[in-house]
């Protein structure tokens, strides 16, 4: 896409936000909004500055959250894709596991957290498990559906042409399921982000963005809470657009399996 077009689109996206921020700032400036209850853009920026200089606590927290997210998500992706492929290829495993999966998938991830607090204790392990579960089910489910939706005729055709199991797996099953797998991976990022924030609130002992918001409540520190909220919003958006948009562009769009996104 042309740079100018992108820039103008970006500015058009930004303009309404800027108007809202300006109105918000004015309302706060004239004390129409109670400063004990609602923050203001300038105070949020100031708070961000305070949290980074001289002591970069915000960056430390963000780093910790991102590390947990990356680790939990990677675990979920590896195990989720593996189990999904197995369930998609083996009918008996599918019969046994799919009812259990559809029961487990309907449980809100956060409901597991008290159980993990109980069994593995407060701290990073619980948060990791929550993130893992948050993304695991979506990935398993989508991978499995991807494999199962491949037409039998394609497999038969490649068998007739003399492909062995390995080639069928690598050249038919995996590419055929890739759209679905990547959809699952993409959904799972949102889920694990959500699980991260929730689990950090309930189970973190060593900081993190979710913890920061939750802890700030005890001091009625609305500025920190709004700062955290904005970081969560922007972070979620960036991860989705940059990382996964990039992944999609490099894989399934390039292979021509979905139409290019605007």
């Amino acid at each position, binding site marked *: 896409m042309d740079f100018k077009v992108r820039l103008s689109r970006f500015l058009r996206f930004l303009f309404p936000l800027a108007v809202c921020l300006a109105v918000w700032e004015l309302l706060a400036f004239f004390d129409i909004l109670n400063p004990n*209850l609602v923050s203001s853009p300038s105070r949020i920026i100031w708070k961000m500055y305070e949290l980074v200089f001289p002591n970069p606590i915000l960056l430390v927290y963000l780093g910790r959250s991102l590390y947990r997210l990356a680790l939990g998500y990677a675990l979920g992706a590896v195990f989720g894709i593996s189990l999904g492929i197995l369930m998609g290829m083996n009918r008996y495993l599918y*019969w046994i596991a799919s009812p259990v999966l559809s029961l487990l998938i309907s449980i*809100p991830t956060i*409901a597991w957290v*008290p159980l993990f607090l109980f069994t593995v204790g407060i701290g990073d392990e619980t948060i990791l498990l929550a993130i893992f579960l948050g993304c695991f089910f979506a990935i398993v489910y989508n991978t499995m559906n991807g494999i199962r939706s491949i037409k039998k005729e394609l497999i038969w055709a490649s068998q007739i042409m003399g492909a062995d199991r390995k080639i069928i797996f690598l050249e038919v099953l995996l590419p055929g399921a890739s759209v679905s797998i990547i959809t699952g991976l993409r959904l799972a990022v949102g889920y694990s982000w959500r699980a991260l924030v929730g689990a950090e609130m309930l189970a973190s002992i060593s900081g993190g963005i979710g913890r920061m*918001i939750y802890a700030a409540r005890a001091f009625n520190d609305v500025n920190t809470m709004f700062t955290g909220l904005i970081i969560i919003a922007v972070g979620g*958006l960036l991860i989705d657009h940059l990382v996964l948009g990039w992944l999609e562009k490099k894989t399934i769009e390039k292979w021509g399996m979905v139409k290019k996104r605007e």
Partner: protein
Amino acid sequence: MKTGIFNKSTSRFFLQAIIVFAVFMSLLLLWEAISFFGILNPSLISRPSEIFLDMWKLFLKRSPAAQSVLLVHIYSSLYRLFLAFSLAAGVGISLGILMGYSQRIHWFLEPLITLAMPVPGIAWAPIFMIWFGFGDPTIISVGALAAFFPIVYNTTTGVRSIEKEFIWAARSMGADRKTIFFKVLLPSSAPYIFTGFKLGLARGWRTIIAVEMIAASLWGLGFMIFDARDYLRPSIIYGGIIILAVVYLFIEGLVKLVERRTIAKWGMVRPEAM
């Protein structure tokens, strides 16, 4: 969601039900047997029989108002979900239609919604607690906020995806604005609105359970699970999780029923959107 192993005939449906039932029973039996032989630590992992018994006791236990404690927990969560969802649906549909109608409103609000939509509902909870304190107002408003975004987003998409030709055709046949709204716009965006409802309901439910853990006073399934942790009662946590799953499957079944009676009957189902 296609859960079916088979989808053909009733006899196959029964076969499927039997397989599902058998799978669950054998897993529970396995679990029970493993716990029975003391392989699992009983203070961490409860036995199925114990979970069932404790849930039964909780069902029989009376609250101060002489109602079953378990049912009051379930009822509180569902009541919050109902209020939050109604609120979100009302505001979401109205705003979504406005955004679909007017290019200007859409241009202005779309960035805000794009930015706020991916924020997990629970992240709002601490701020709402400062505004509304513990209890229902916080839980319901955070739940409503979480459910609002998918509804407004899908409604907008629905209204905007109507082909202009339909509206022109209706207009040239002499339909006024009101007729166009009720006979063209609303029916053709109904499937989208319904998708928004489904997503909103799921999101609202999840958020309400989560917020109940940090902001509930006394009742609600989320509160029940989180509270059991303090009293070292794993069986109630396990039971609570199972009840959460069952209640949600029940809600999902209800939604499917409504869908079959309305959208599907009108012939307007569109491919499943996640």
